[in-house]
């Protein structure tokens, strides 16, 4: 079996040994230079076993305990989308709805088949022209509108027919816009968005990762994530597991009297520039002709100690009321289709955070969204739930 190695045509010499080592190093360097020149990272990332050898994932991969959840958190955006079920041709009778949002829309503490998008699709809404509403969640458990925009930018490649953007005040905070690794580690893409849509973000924010090199070494992390997510694909295909739902403690219902929020330490009036409304504007420009409905997602409203000062552990009442007032006004002046569902769900709908919901509550919300989008498409207005 090892004959080829043990009995070479002519005996090995030190010269041969050195030649092999040198040739190997040269090849390695050549590959790196070629990689840096061709920049094939995105092309490679879009190669995927999903939707071919293995069924597509029902949401973007995310998770810390990779071993149990057969998934991983990655900054490699094209690779994430290539694993998604959206990465397939659109059926002729399919009306493709994208759900953009944070961990609530992603379905934290929910198994894959009970997410908002999955339950919306399962309700089989039919449009007047006979098309089926098929919803895809491209949400990602990070609270930042810029992250939503970043993912929406990639998702536009997959011919969506409508985008529903579920937001909450946390995602509007300015210092959260570049707060997460997925944004910091994609400096080129984010800077491109800043210039294309004149976002009020600082392109040289020191939190952006500096690009060490475009060679293989520089892209090691993205390549490794891409490879491992393919391998986990077999586990996803075999088990349908992409998230581990274990015990959790209920969201808080009692609070102290500190009413600060982000860098606002006391109640005051807030102007639109204090919140990232410009990213929502950019989203409207990005989707172009297709309809974009912005939804202020439902949240838990506490009734415990100091609940007169706090809606929940995210929001003191004063800042959230300011936010809602601002949002309605900005939406009207910009003629955005805006649906405020902040208090649409009862208190027992929520799990470990003010926005994470139980499977049944998620089902109810999917019904509301379903009727909202069908009313809008059939009659042109968002229906009674929204106003």
């Amino acid at each position: 079996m090892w004959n080829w190695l043990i009995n070479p045509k002519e005996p090995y010499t030190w010269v041969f040994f050195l030649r092999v080592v040198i040739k190997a190093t040269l090849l390695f360097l050549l590959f790196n230079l070629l990689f840096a020149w061709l920049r094939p990272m995105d092309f490679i990332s879009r190669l995927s076993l999903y939707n071919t050898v293995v069924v597509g994932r029902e949401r973007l991969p995310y998770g810390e305990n990779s071993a149990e959840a057969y998934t991983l958190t990655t900054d490699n955006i094209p690779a994430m989308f290539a694993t998604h079920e959206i990465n397939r041709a659109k059926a002729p009778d399919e009306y493709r709805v994208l759900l953009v949002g944070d961990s609530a829309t992603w379905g934290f503490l929910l198994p894959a088949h009970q997410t908002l998008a999955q339950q919306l699709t399962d309700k089989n809404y039919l449009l007047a022209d006979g098309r089926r509403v098929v919803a895809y969640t491209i949400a990602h458990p990070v609270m930042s509108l810029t992250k939503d925009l970043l993912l929406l930018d990639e998702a536009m490649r997959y011919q969506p027919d409508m985008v529903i953007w579920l937001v909450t005040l946390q995602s509007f905070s300015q210092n959260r816009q570049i707060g997460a690794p997925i944004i910091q580690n994609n400096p080129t893409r984010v800077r491109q968005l800043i210039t294309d849509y004149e976002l009020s973000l600082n392109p040289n924010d020191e939190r952006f990762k500096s690009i060490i090199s475009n060679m293989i070494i520089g892209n090691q992390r993205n390549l490794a994530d891409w490879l491992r997510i393919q391998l986990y694909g077999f586990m996803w295909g075999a088990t349908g597991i992409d998230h581990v739902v274990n015990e959790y403690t209920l969201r808080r219902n009692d609070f102290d009297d500190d009413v600060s929020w982000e860098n606002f330490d006391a109640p005051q009036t807030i102007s639109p520039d204090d919140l990232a409304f410009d990213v929502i504007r950019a989203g409207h420009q990005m989707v172009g002709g297709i309809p974009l409905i912005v939804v202020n997602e439902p949240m838990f409203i506490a009734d415990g100690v100091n609940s007169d000062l706090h809606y929940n552990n995210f929001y003191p009442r004063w800042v959230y009321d300011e936010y809602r007032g601002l949002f309605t006004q900005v939406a009207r002046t910009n003629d955005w289709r805006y649906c405020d569902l902040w208090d649409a769900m009862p208190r027992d709908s929520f799990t470990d955070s003010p926005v994470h919901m139980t499977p049944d509550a998620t089902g109810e919300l999917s019904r509301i969204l379903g009727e909202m989008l069908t009313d809008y498409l059939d009659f042109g207005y968002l229906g009674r739930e929204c106003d």
Partner: protein
Amino acid sequence: MTFNLTLIAIFTVGGFIYSLILPKSWRKWTLFIASLLAVYALQPPLLIRDMDFILPTITIFVAVFVWIATLPRTDNRLRMTIQWRDLFTMAILILLITGLAMTRHLPSEWQLLTASRPPDPFTIFLALLPIALLIILLGGAQINQPRQRLALSFIILIIIGVFIILKTESFAIGLSGWLREQTGRDASLANPLTDLNWLGFSYVAFRLIHVLRDRQTGKLPDVSLRDMLTYIIFFPSLTAGPIDRIERFQEDLSALPDMNGRDPSRIVVGSTRIVIGIFKKFVIADSLALFSLSITNAEQATNAGGMWILLYAYAFRLFFDFSGYTDIAIGIGMLFGVQLPENFNRPYLKNSITAFWQAWHITLSNWVRFYIFSPLTRTMLRWKRKPSSDVIVGIGLVATMVIIGLWHGISLTFLVWGLWHATGLFIHKMWSDRTRKWYNQFKKKQGQLRLWNWAGIFITFHFVVMGWVWFALPDLNTVFSVLGKLAGVGF
């Protein structure tokens, strides 16, 4: 700890220095001392105090005891052939172990040579000497020529006894519980994996039995204490084999002094084997590990296709991990001038289960053939009213394969795995006996032969893969649920 990349790098660099720089006369001693250190350094840390220092020491002293017991007894009077060099080796041994214990006083980040903080050297020195002397007295004086054969069988039984205790779940938990009580630890947390994980014991036990048996059958060459110890605990093959034979190993050792250190071909072939081994183990096997069959994902699987992928991934991971490790061990051995035997020869491309077992873990199947199958079948053949040769082969196969199965762990699933392969081997033996003449003619038709060959490979491979279900899963009902899922039932 198994071979991680840093360890492989250390061994490889060590190999280059050993080959290119080290004086030739130092080579045998270097292998001896390196192996002695490796027994302590590679031993995984254990939760019972000092256990990860005691177990390696026991390994060494058992090896010394076996060497003494297998010394040729020249005549009835108790004279044995212990030479000065062997006493010198024992002195080096005791000094080294005590020296290792001394590292107890070094700051903990310097204690690289032992799994955890070694016990107090003073007690070691006091405890060590009496034990060493006791062994020499007990071993030497008691065993004289007529009784040597019986004594060796007794030692073999002890080794098998210890093996059974360590490898049977209930016994091992009982033992680690008892040990925890002795050292004042919480006995309820008894867990053999964290308490009694004895580095390379299964492999050392088989090398010891090989040496003891070969003395009984008169095949054991004369070997010095240093060479015997180096053979038993040779550092590249300490953790997981291959199980070499002592006369072959000794040939390499004796050739060391005049081995050309600067011979490029040995170093090129050795380094290439290491690089190939690293690729197989750390790239292929570790990638397959992400989706290879396990107790958890077996229950989670929801479709037959997925189940088959997990099983195939397990089959290939097992091969690439073990054959990759073996390539590394053989490559490192080569750098040190020792040509360890091969363990794999494209097993999944063999067209019969018999050929598979001559290509999978070869050194283990050789060992069981020499020390279980062959002696067992010969004893049965010598009986006056001996059963038919088919029955003899059948019994021999069942005994051999069951022992290979239980060697991995004494549990029902490993037992069934052994029986599975014994049945396969037996059926193939019956088949090939009855078709030998037909096959010798058939071999001439090239076209059909290739087709027949591929059919054989397909059947053998899947027979082995189905066997891995028993091997991979610890309890029967998971096995049955997986077998059902593979057939598309039971979701």
